[in-house]
């Protein structure tokens, strides 16, 4: 049973560019959440998708947007990249939106903005 997968593994961009990160959830999971983990920090919640709609959002600007597809996979898009967007971006999937629906994390995409 494949777990959560993410692509690409690493990415280097320059300031002002746009980036798209991809996530495939664990089999049987329909809810996808995205987190940003800066160096030396814990993951911070960006947003969550369920039934192809953004259901919850953390304290991130509109430059961060996403999408969920009918097969439950998801994309995270970041526009107008800033140096401060350099981080590990984690995708997590869960079998539902309930607070007891455990989130399973992928390996992450390491984004470096130069």
């Amino acid at each position: 049973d494949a777990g959560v997968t993410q692509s690409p593994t690493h990415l280097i961009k320059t300031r002002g560019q746009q980036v798209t990160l991809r996530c495939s959830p664990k089999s049987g999971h329909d809810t996808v959440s995205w987190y940003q983990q800066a160096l030396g920090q814990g993951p911070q919640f960006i947003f969550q998708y369920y039934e192809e709609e953004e259901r919850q959002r953390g304290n991130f600007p509109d430059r961060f947007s996403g999408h969920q597809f009918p097969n439950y996979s998801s994309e995270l898009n970041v526009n107008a990249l800033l140096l401060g967007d350099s981080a590990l971006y984690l995708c997590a999937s869960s079998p539902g939106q309930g607070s007891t629906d455990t989130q399973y994390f992928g390996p992450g995409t390491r984004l470096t903005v130069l």
Partner: protein
Amino acid sequence: AQSVSQHNHHVILSEAASLELGCNYSYGGTVNLFWYVQYPGQHLQLLLKYFSGDPLVKGIKGFEAEFIKSKFSFNLRKPSVQWSDTAEYFCAVNAAGYGNNRLAFGKGNQVVVIP
């Protein structure tokens, strides 16, 4: 919104020593609590979780955690660590209820076990 505090960001100890990592959260309502672990080169994995019931929960690899509601704490313990426990440990919390499974994480504890 919930917030989580973890102290002693870097911990170094010898094999067979006991480990205790503190976690305090701030939130006025009912919460669910989690400890995740990230081994070197691996992704975040769930170590244990508490939803309700017995406040002492046991997880994988001999870890346990105790929820003390009056202290807003969920401390992680292991009586005797092994070199393979070298990892980063994160405490996380969410507000109980449907549609609330977004997690708030602490900054993590980097634990190094010396053989």
